[in-house]
Structure formats: structure tokens, C-alpha cells
């Protein structure tokens, strides 16, 4: 039986390079044995051989098909082991899984991209997709927050993104820090008094769930409709193919129907954010 027919079999993948983004976040440049085409927002199950899998959304551009970048926050068993790994070592990949972002729906609209911490990683593949075709969108506003200046991910790219025509880039950190002259406060402060055409906007957000909760509340307060808000629901996952049950939210399997969900579809789930 061919490889593709066993959905649990990991494709052997070599680490080409490890990039240190912050003290706790690293980006891994990966070369799978065979190219794995994906859409922005679709995710992979990454295997540390003999240890286990964890889900990650590629942070690289979907247009780059031979290689893939995955940006990982060190936080537990699998990610600890991953952070110890070096170029030349082997991993496994399964995927891509999920629907990916509804990019075509965003054509002609103002797109608000709201990220927190390592949540900017999955959003980066969307940002590349949007910026690559910037003429198709009315405007792209990136709002990003991290705890400290040191924890800002992809900091070296902010200037380039922000200088593009049609792009507005804003960054904040949670608490004042020596040498920081920018905005201070949770990412929701960047959502105050949005100067945008509400009717023609979509917001897309990725970050810790508490952040998603407060971003959603803030956006609703600012006048967004639930239909205009997309949230990356990055819950516990195992199979990636709608069978193991772990990722269920309401009637939806996040691994199949998400992981980016339209808030209108899940807002009635009791205790949505736990």
C-alpha cells in the first residue's frame, strides 16, 4: 500500500537550519522527502522520532513548496526535544490538515491580522500570502503583541512588512521595558478606535485562547459581526483527520473544519473558551 494511504505515517524530513527567533522560540527550516504543498492556515503534525507528535502551522509562504518553515515555542515534551535538535537531524511530517484561511473571501476587504506571542507564526504564512498579492486587498493591518521586546517573533521583518503600500503594522508589549519606546499594553489596545470600513472588513486572530477571547470581545465591541471574525482554535489534536475526537468544538472537528473557525459558527458552544 502506498504511503499516502496510511494517514498516520510520517514523511521523513531533514532539518536544514535552526533559526533562533527569541529565547523560547525557534524556526526550523525543513526539507521533507517529497514536497508538501499547503495553503496558509493549514497545519502539519510534526514527529520527533520515537517521542511523539505535535501540531504546528507552517510559518513560511505557501509559494515556497520545496521547503517549509515551522516556528515553535518551547513549552513541553515534544517542543523541548525539538529545541535540542540541530541541522542535519531527521523529523517526520504528516499533513497538511484543515481548511486553511478563506483567502478568497478576503479579496477587496480590509484584513485585520491580530497575533499574540508565537501566534504570529501561523499568521506569517497568511501575511506572506496577503502581502504577495497586496493589490487584491483594500488594506492589511497587522496588530501584534508579545510580553516583552525580547519575545517579539520575526522582529527583523516588521519594517519591511510595514513599509509596503497598503500595509499597516502595529506592535505592542504587555509591560513597559527599558529601551522600548513603542506602545505598551495587551494587544487589544491596538484595537481601540479602529479607523476602518467596518462593513468591508475581516479579522483573523491567532494566539493563546485567553487572548482570542478578549480580542473577540473587543472586536464585537468595536462593531464587528461574529461572521467577520476568524479565530485559530489551536486545541489538543492527535490524528489530524477527523477521527480521534480530540479537537471537537461543538459539532466541528478543528483538524478538518478549522483550525481557523469563523466565530459565528462556534459562538453558541457552551463555555467556548473553557
Amino acid at each position, binding site marked *: *500500500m502506498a*504511503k499516502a*494511504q*496510511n*494517514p*498516520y*505515517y*510520517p514523511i*521523513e524530513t531533514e532539518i536544514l537550519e535552526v533559526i533562533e527567533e527569541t529565547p523560547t522560540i525557534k524556526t526550523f527550516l525543513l526539507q521533507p522527502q517529497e514536497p508538501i504543498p499547503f495553503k496558509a492556515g493549514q497545519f502539519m503534525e510534526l*514527529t*520527533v*522520532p*520515537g*517521542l*511523539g*507528535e505535535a501540531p504546528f502551522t507552517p510559518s513560511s509562504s505557501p509559494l515556497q513548496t520545496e521547503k517549509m518553515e515551522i516556528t515553535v*515555542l518551547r*513549552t*513541553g515534551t515534544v*517542543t523541548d526535544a525539538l529545541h535540542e535538535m540541530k541541522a542535519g537531524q*531527521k523529523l*517526520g511530517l504528516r499533513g497538511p490538515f484543515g481548511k486553511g484561511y478563506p483567502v478568497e473571501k478576503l479579496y477587496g476587504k480590509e484584513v485585520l491580522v491580530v497575533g499574540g506571542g508565537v501566534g504570529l507564526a501561523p499568521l506569517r504564512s497568511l501575511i506572506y500570502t496577503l502581502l504577495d498579492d497586496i493589490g487584491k486587498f483594500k488594506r492589511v493591518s497587522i496588530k501584534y503583541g508579545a510580553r516583552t521586546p525580547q519575545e517579539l517573533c520575526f522582529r527583523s521583518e516588521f519594517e519591511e512588512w510595514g513599509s509596503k503600500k497598503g500595509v499597516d503594522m502595529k506592535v505592542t508589549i504587555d509591560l513597559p521595558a527599558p529601551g522600548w519606546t513603542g506602545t505598551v499594553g495587551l494587544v487589544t489596545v491596538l484595537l481601540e478606535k479602529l479607523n476602518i470600513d467596518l462593513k468591508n472588513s475581516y479579522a483573523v486572530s491567532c494566539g*493563546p*485562547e485567553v487572548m482570542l477571547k478578549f480580542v473577540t470581545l473587543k472586536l464585537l465591541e468595536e462593531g464587528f459581526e461574529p461572521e467577520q471574525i476568524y479565530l485559530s482554535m*489551536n*486545541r*489538543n489534536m*492527535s*490524528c489530524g*483527520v*477527523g*477521527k*480521534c*475526537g*480530540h479537537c*471537537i*468544538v*461543538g*459539532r466541528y472537528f478543528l483538524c478538518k473544519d478549522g483550525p481557523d473557525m469563523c466565530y459565528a459558527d462556534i459562538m453558541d458552544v*457552551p*463555555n*467556548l*473558551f*473553557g
Partner: protein
Amino acid sequence: MKVWVTDREKFEFFLEKILADSVLYANVEDQEGQVHFERLPKEELTRVCIEKARALETTKALFFPPRTKVAQYPSASPAEITATKSTVVGIRACGLKALQILDRVFTDDVMDPFYQAKRENSTIITCDCTEPWETCFCTEVGYKPYPESGFDLNLAPLDGQILVEVGSEKGEALVAEHSELFAEPEKGLLEKMKAKRKAVVQRVKEINARFHAAAPYQEAVKKQLINPLWAKQGVAYSCVECGACTHVCPTCRCFLLVDEQVGDHSERTMVWDVCFYPGYWRMAGNLSPKPRLLDRFQNRFSCKFDYFVDNYQAIACTGCGRCIQACMGKIDIRQCLSELLAADKTSKK
């Protein structure tokens, strides 16, 4: 479909013939009168039990075992996925429904080749229920105590004879190959079978009369699961999170992929998981969307009676009653459903 008649001796002879290239799993009765589901050697065909009702153990484990090795890596190419041919005798209507429900999960747009191989290589010989258990409630969920479709052959024991209904091309071929063992049923026999079936339906209804827990459930589950009265005073409160109910349940299918190093390679194993366990939901940083036991208890009900209905157009409970027998906290799912339905009725007044 076509119904034939045979007797016990001929049926055993038939089994012996068709077991030439397959292994047998069948229901057997123990000394206490309890029915079990076992792998049976060909020499013990006299032990095959086609009377009474479903076995204590679920047939789920045959197609979706507690542990399945699903990958060995790295390797030049993944191993070929095969399954031993099996003949399964004694699955009841509720067990067959459960398999049809698992089919939808495991063989939807993405095929689980391990489940699929085992399903393809099995011959399913189901049976009518003759004596339901006190925990049976198939009729309340809207199912019947006799299979209607999805089997290869179905057996209905009747007055020392066995009526054999053909349910698939495979079943038809098996009968045709051994046609000397099957006869046309004499006049009136089919009517007698129908009358017996009706009596068994009646019996299951009698067993459940005191519960008032007949389907549909979806609306009540949607609205009343979060009703604090149900949550705080209802039967949910005695759950001890052991996971017994999900393990014995023929439709529960949650699993986890576990990796380990074995010598010079790695193996990935699919193991049963339980939505009651806190670890099932656990995310990085020890966060959980379902921190309270009650949240997780509710999930089992939402999954079976609400989400499944939306996603697969079927209630993922077949009324087999195994979870009632298995529960350490003496939780009776019929009581839970009945409380939900009652709460919903009250809320509409």
C-alpha cells in the same frame, strides 16, 4: 431479502465449511448464563450461542482494537496493511448499528486503512435477539432488536430451526455454495418469525417503561445539558472518571497516537482514549478547554446525541446498555436521558 431455513446441525456444518480460510469469533454462553464474545477454535462450534442477546464484550475491539500499530519509521516504504479473514457470529442489531456508525468515522473522506482492511476481510453473521437483558434499550433510541440491513447473513432461531436471511451478495454466495444445507421455509414460518420479533420489541419496551427515555434527544441535549439543575443534582454527579463506559461502548472511538523507540526504529501505536480524562483535552502550558469533570461528562452526551446527529445523521448510541453494566458510579444512561427530556419538557411549559 431471501430467507432460508436450516437447523443447528446443518448450521454448524456450514460454519465448518466456511471457516476453511478464516478464523471464528462468536458469542458463547458461560455457566452463569452470561454471553461473551470470543475467538473460538473450529473444534468448538457446538458452543456458538445464537440465542439470548448481545455479548458483554463489544465487537468494536475486533475492528478497532485497544492497540493498533499504525506505523514503523523511518523505513523505505510503509508496511503493507492486511488483515486476517474472520467470520463473526452473534453480533446483534445494536452491535451492527455500532459498526455502521464506526464505518462513517473511519471510512469517510479520509480512509483508515487498518479498520477498512479488517472490515473488508470479515463475514458478518448477525442474530435476532431472543431474550433481551434488563439493560437493553435499543427500542428507545429508535433501533430494533433484530438487524435489518448491513449483515451478510442473519440468523433467527425459531422452534428448533434457524431462519437464515441473506443480506449481501457475499451472504448469497455462501448460501449458494452450500445450498444442500438450506431449504425453503415452510408456509407460516416467516409470519411466526415476525410475531416473535414483535414480542421481543414489546419486551424491550416493557423493560424500559419506567424510564420515559425515548428518542429524539437532540434538542433536549442541546438545551438542557447546561441546565444547572441537571448538572448539580442529576446523575452526572457520581461519575468517577474511570472511562469504563467509553471502553465498553461499541460506538466510542476516541484514540491517541503514541510514539515510542523500539530498538533501532520508532513505532506509532493507536490506543483507545477517553474524553472523560483531563489529559484528553490538555494543551500546552497545562491549559484545558474542559477543566471540570462536568464539562467532560457533558461532552459524551453532546458527542453521541447532538454532534453525531449533525455530522453523521445517526445517534451514536445503540441502546446496548453496556455502559450501564460497567459504571462504577451506577450511572444509568437511560436515567440521564430521561432527566434531560423531563427538564426540556418543563422548560417549555
